[in-house]
Each structure stands twice: as structure tokens, then as C-alpha cells.
């Protein structure tokens, strides 16, 4: 029994070491492009300015659609924009990691190691989520420190649970998208469909209640709708997890359906490209 627990512990250490290796590699690469890092930070600042002046146009007294979220457009759009970056990472993380490795030529070298391909992709995506979190934190700090934004009485625990469910749901879509990149190398319908539909219907820039009714129904089929509503209500109105049960259950349904489907698709795509000999083509 003891040896079994030792084995599990050793395995856990090895996995942790691999995760740290991938993140260290990504971090060193990122900071080696210093200018790019600075530009990314400055782009946050500039987009906040745009949203801030846009929010001046919208009078809280007349915007009844914003009342469920506290009535402040700037806070609404700040959270929408900040957290939608998780959608981008979730959708794009897997596929861009594969595509980068194909383009840079490191894919073969990584595939002949003793680490599963999916494990490396998961760690790479984890790094992307970590970086997206820095992005989100920067958005929120800038937004609340320098602009007229207020969190009210946030329920951080509920927001974190919503965020974890969001990451899992978006990652499922990302794995599906990665399957397309493995086989077709460039262009994935999953990204195209979910990225544009999510920005249009998901409530990033406006509450979905401003949309026609049939659009609102369609919006329910997108994980981002539930995720943004949940996170906004938790952060801006202090909703607890029990008050967010509809959003929580909706995201769980997405995960339960999408995650196994995407893993099956990815394994099939990996097997097919290995058979075709096109695994490392781009």
C-alpha cells in the first residue's frame, strides 16, 4: 500500500516538474520579446480608455438593461472584455500550441519524449490561461484604480468557481479546435464559429437582453453567455454560488458533453495524422 502511494507521489512530482518545465520555457521565451510584452500592457490601457469614454454616453438612469449588473456600463464591459480573454485562450490555446510547434519544428522533438502529447498541450494551455489571468488582473486593476469602476460587494469564491468552470468549458472547445489543426493544419471551424458568435451573442459588450428574442435563445447555446453572466453577477452584485445555480449547471452540462467528445476527436485526429505521416506538417 505504501509503495503504491509512493508511486503516486513520484508520478505527481514528475508531472509537476514537466508543468514547470513548460511554463519556464514559455516564460523565458515571452520575456525574450520585451517590446511585445510592453505593447500588450499598453493595449490594455488604450482599450480601457475607449470603453471608459464609451460608457460616458450611456446614462445609468436610462439603461435598464444594465440594472441587473449594477447599472454601470464601464464595469459591465470591463468584466466582459477581461474575462472573454479566457474564451480566446480556451479556443485558441490548444490549436495555437500545435500550430506553433508545427511551424517552429519542435513538434517532432517533443513527440519522441516520454511525455504524452496531450500532457504537453495541457501545460502549454495552462500557461496561456496563467498569462490571460495576468491580463485580466491588469484590466481589473487599471479599471478600478484609474477609472470610475466599482465592484460593490463581490463574492470571490463564486467568481472563482465560475472561472474554473469557464476554463474547462472553453478548453473543451479548444481541444476540438486542436483536432482540426492537427488534420487540416490551418483554419478551424470551431474557432470561427464560437469566437464570432460569442462576441456577437455572448454578452461581452452589451447585455444579451438588448438582442432580439430568437438571438437570446441562440445565446443560451454558448458557454460564454452563462460564464459572463455568472462572473458579472458574482463580482458586481455579490451573488453566491447557490444564487448562480442556473449558470453553474449550464456550464457543467457543456463540460459533460463537450469534454469527452473533444478528447475522442483529438485522439482520432492524432491517430489519423500519425497514419498519414502528416503529424509535423504545416
Amino acid at each position, binding site marked *: 500500500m505504501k509503495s503504491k502511494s509512493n508511486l503516486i507521489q513520484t508520478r505527481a512530482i514528475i508531472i509537476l*516538474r514537466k508543468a514547470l*518545465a513548460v511554463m519556464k520555457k514559455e516564460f*523565458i*521565451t515571452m520575456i525574450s520579446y520585451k517590446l511585445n510584452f510592453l505593447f500588450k500592457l499598453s493595449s490594455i490601457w488604450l482599450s480601457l480608455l475607449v470603453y471608459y469614454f464609451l460608457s460616458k454616453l450611456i446614462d445609468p438612469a436610462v439603461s435598464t438593461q444594465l440594472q441587473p449588473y449594477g447599472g454601470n456600463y464601464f464595469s459591465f464591459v470591463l468584466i466582459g472584455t477581461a474575462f472573454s480573454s479566457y474564451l480566446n485562450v480556451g479556443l485558441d490555446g490548444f490549436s495555437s500550441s500545435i500550430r506553433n510547434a508545427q511551424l517552429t519544428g519542435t513538434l517532432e*522533438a517533443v513527440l519522441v*519524449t*516520454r511525455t504524452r502529447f496531450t500532457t504537453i498541450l495541457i501545460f502549454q494551455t495552462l500557461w496561456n490561461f496563467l498569462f490571460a489571468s495576468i491580463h485580466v488582473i491588469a484590466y481589473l486593476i487599471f479599471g478600478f484604480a484609474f477609472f470610475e469602476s466599482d465592484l460593490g460587494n463581490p463574492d470571490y469564491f463564486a467568481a472563482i468557481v465560475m472561472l474554473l468552470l469557464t476554463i474547462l468549458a472553453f478548453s473543451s472547445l479548444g481541444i476540438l479546435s486542436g483536432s482540426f489543426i492537427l488534420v487540416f493544419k490551418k483554419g478551424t471551424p470551431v474557432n470561427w464559429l464560437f469566437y464570432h458568435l460569442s462576441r456577437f451573442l455572448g454578452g461581452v459588450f452589451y447585455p444579451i437582453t438588448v438582442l432580439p428574442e430568437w438571438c437570446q435563445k441562440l445565446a443560451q447555446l454558448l458557454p460564454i453567455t452563462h460564464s459572463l453572466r455568472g462572473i458579472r453577477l458574482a463580482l458586481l452584485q455579490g451573488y453566491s454560488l447557490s444564487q448562480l445555480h442556473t449558470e453553474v449547471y449550464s456550464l457543467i452540462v457543456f463540460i459533460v458533453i463537450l469534454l469527452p467528445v473533444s478528447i475522442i476527436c483529438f485522439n482520432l485526429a492524432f491517430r489519423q495524422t500519425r497514419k498519414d*505521416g502528416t503529424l509535423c506538417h504545416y
Partner: protein
Amino acid sequence: MSDFSNNSEIGKIIVRCENITKYYPVPLPIKSIFKFQFIREKKLILDNIGFSVREGEIFGIIGPNGAGKTTTLKIMCTLTTPTKGKAFVYGHDVAKERRDVLKKIGYCISEERSFFWRLTGRQNLNFFADLLEVPPEKAKRRINELLERFELEDSSDKRFLNYSSGMKQKMAIARSLLADPEVIFMDEPTRGLDPGSAFKLRSLIKSFAKEENKTIIITTNRVSDIKNLCQRILVLNKGKAVIKGTLEEISSSVKKEKGVSGELPFEETFNLLLANNKVGTNGEIKK
């Protein structure tokens, strides 16, 4: 010709390739979509290739560009699967037991872009050591040892993008040795190197193969690699096995076939073999 000459010193068979055939699908041209033709044509890359390699041996696969050398290696390294036939490393089927095979092998990719260029040489080796599950203390020791052996210590903390072609090739070999694997597959390790650097690299390969008792399977289109490194070879041309055996066996077979008396330089033997292009499924030259 038999797979092995009567040499009692050589060890047990650890790499076996049995009648491997590989077809690659040809991408569909755009016009076929409009004609509703969705069945892809297949191109024959390897045709019924078979060979075995014994423990401690340096086995060469030589042939011109497009002969199927890299595809053979990729099959052995589990990067692609054979359409027909089977291949084994230490008894593990390369198509079905990928993880077990990967525990036994090192793959030296001569593609310089297989490294992370923004990282230093040492950071690259550390990264791959972690993915290869080498314990940290052992990895540190091994990396220092390899950097010293390949005369890379002084440049180990420079970014990989600043390395010369020779240094990049040395790094590729060092990476394949990180986890101390039993078998190392090397894809054209001297590609792109000037004769002097190629000579030095061959000496290095020879010395570590002997000192660490490694089994090496090397692909090349340089006759000098074969002459200086390999105990036995397989000659491939257009996906077919032209001949296999020791250099002496091949040379005498070609001399007999062509009616050549006296010395026949191996370069000439190789040219005659490829010009002949009559292929037997087991590697014999057809009469």
C-alpha cells in the same frame, strides 16, 4: 543475403523491421473537390523493407534523397505507422506500444529548428530532460557530462539561435543521449556540415557509441558516414531495399554481379548499386 555475418561477438537483435510498406496519401487537388472526387491517391514510400539490428551495432541506412530513409526512421521512432508490416524495438511493436518504445530510444533530429531558439543550449537540454523524465540530479550531471563531451560548455549559456550548424548538430546528438537510451536513431547527423566538422562529429559518434555501448541506426546520403561509422548497412533507393550486409559483403556482391576484378572503392560500389536499381524484396540484387 543474410541479416548477419557469422560474428559471435555481436549481441542479440533489439531492432527488427519486418516487411514494412508505407503509403502516404497524396493531398487532393482543389479541382477534385468540384468534381466530387474525395478519394485520395496513395504514394508508395517504402516497399517491403526488412532489417534487424543487434545490440551495440552501428547500422547505416544509405540512399539518395527521397529513398525513404527518414520515413523508415520515423516509423521506428513511432512518429508514423507502417501501412503493412511490423517493426519492433526491444520486442515492443512501434505501432501499438508507443510509450514502451519511447522509453528505449533517443531520436537525433538533424533539423536545427527542433530546438527552442530563444532558450540557451543548457535551458533546451533541461527542458527536454524534464520531458524525458530524467531525475533533476541525474539530469544536471548528464547535461554537464554531455556538454563537456561535445565541447559545448563554453557556449551552453548562449542562446541556441547564436549556435553554428556544427554546434546545433552536436546539441541534437546530446539531446538524444539525455535519458541514456539503449538505441539511438540519427537522421543525417552530418547534414549541412563541412567535411572537417563532419569528420569531428563522426569521431564523436564513434567514441560515445563504443564507450556507452549504444546501438545506433543512422541514415545518411554520405558514403563517408557509412565507411567510417557503420558495421552493416541497408541501401535504399526509391523506397526499395537494394542490398544489405557488411561493406565487404556488399562490395564483393557488386563486384561479382558486375564482373569487376580487383579493388572497388565503396563510393563506386554505391554508384553501381543505385544505377542498377534491380531490387529484391529481401534486399538481394536481382539477376
